[in-house]
């Protein structure tokens, strides 16, 4: 929907601003573990209430030292990836042996999101940024209006409500890789049960000093065999 400014004389200059998101991804969860960062997100992208796309990679590596996970508008995420690509390219072109670490990338993203918000044209995303550089682990989050922080575990969207409490209870320093994955899967399973925009196809990405690994997509085991679900019409028989 176009917003007409005061200089508009008909159809010439009109300001377009983001009004609402169209194709959106749901939660991303990130945790620090012994060797680095683990990040999980499902591969779904919804178009309103339709689960339109089911193979969207919402966690991507950035440079040598970082991982970015995004929820919210997917087209804005693609735009962000393009900007980050350019950022890393120029960083590499210096060829000075130095490379942007997760702290720097997080700061860049924060400035980008905040400045768009100042122009009333936000990038409609909540981003998780994690990485390791020189043994230092880093995990942070930025929202679409520029609110940012770092912590030992972060989650966007529904993950903030459903996953963070589990993480607050069960996360601890020096989680092994296996325990970290189990913890993330526990959170993703709760989200799968309770978030209607979640799909049962997820990727878990790992970043350590050595590099990035993004897992192949896989599905979580779910359990629906509860007694209350057997004979659902038991208390009120219908025609079928």
């Amino acid at each position, binding site marked *: 929907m176009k917003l007409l400014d005061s200089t508009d004389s008909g159809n010439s200059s009109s300001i377009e601003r983001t009004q609402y998101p169209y194709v959106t991804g749901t939660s991303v969860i990130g945790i620090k573990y012994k060797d680095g960062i683990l990040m999980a997100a499902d591969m779904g992208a919804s178009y309103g209430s339709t689960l339109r796309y089911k193979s969207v990679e919402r966690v991507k590596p950035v440079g040598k030292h970082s991982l970015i996970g995004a929820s919210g508008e997917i087209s804005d995420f693609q735009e962000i990836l393009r900007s980050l690509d350019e950022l890393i390219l120029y960083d590499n072109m210096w060829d000075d042996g130095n490379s942007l670490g997760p702290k720097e990338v997080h700061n860049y993203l924060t400035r980008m999101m*905040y400045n768009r918000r100042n122009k009333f044209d936000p990038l409609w995303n909540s981003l998780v940024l994690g990485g390791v550089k020189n043994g230092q682990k880093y995990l942070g989050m930025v929202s679409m209006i520029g*609110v940012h922080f770092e912590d030992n575990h972060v989650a966007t969207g529904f993950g903030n409500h459903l996953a963070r409490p589990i993480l607050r209870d069960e996360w601890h320093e020096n989680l092994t890789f296996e325990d970290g994955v189990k913890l993330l899967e526990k959170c993703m399973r709760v989200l799968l049960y309770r978030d209607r925009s979640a799909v049962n196809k997820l990727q878990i990405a790992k970043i350590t000093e050595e590099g990035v690994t993004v897992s192949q997509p896989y599905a979580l085991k779910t359990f629906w065999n509860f007694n209350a679900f057997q004979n659902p019409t038991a208390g009120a028989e219908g025609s079928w």
Partner: protein
Amino acid sequence: LASTMTKQQANWSPYDNNGGTCVAIAGADYCVIAADTRMSTGYSILTRDYSKICKLADKCVMASSGFQADVKALQKVLSARHLIYQHQHNKQMSCPAMGQLLSNTLYYKRFFPYYSFNVLGGLDTEGKGCVYTYDAVGSYERVGYSSQGSGATLITPFLDNQLKSPSPLLLPAKDAVTPLSETEAIDLVKTCFASATERDIYTGDKLEIVVLNADGIRREYMELRKD
């Protein structure tokens, strides 16, 4: 035709309140600045370990609560301006000077404000404690003590009672800095936050206290209720 010509409504807000409370108390030769470390949004806690306190100059510390992205941007602007000042004048900015700069910076965005509620604490040019308190668009005043943020309504009346501030209407003007000792002031601050944490949902987790005096700058922490 009326249906196509209705004014569009915003469906997102450029502001958010990330909560938290700040307090500053000025003494004869010290200043105590404190803030909790909880960062919230709506009814969720984003993180329990986030500092709202920023050292702007050797003798000048700012604590701000409100919309975190604006707070951070404001701190960045002031730190950058201080660096330029140091390059130009080969000295640190005094607390009163930083006080004026903060006011001007806030008013600069009078028509799209920094949603940031600040208290500035430090030592003035004579080494006495000073506290400046601000609203979101830059009106400020030097006071003996102040509180801003979500718990301010709970803390300010208590400080009024304990610090027996003389009326600003009296002549000659009486100094508002407290006669309390540094340790007594710190204890008072801890009591303020313990009480505010009980009743304000946005205040809690941990208290960060910064003390500025002639010996330099010191930091202290205290656990608060996490519910």
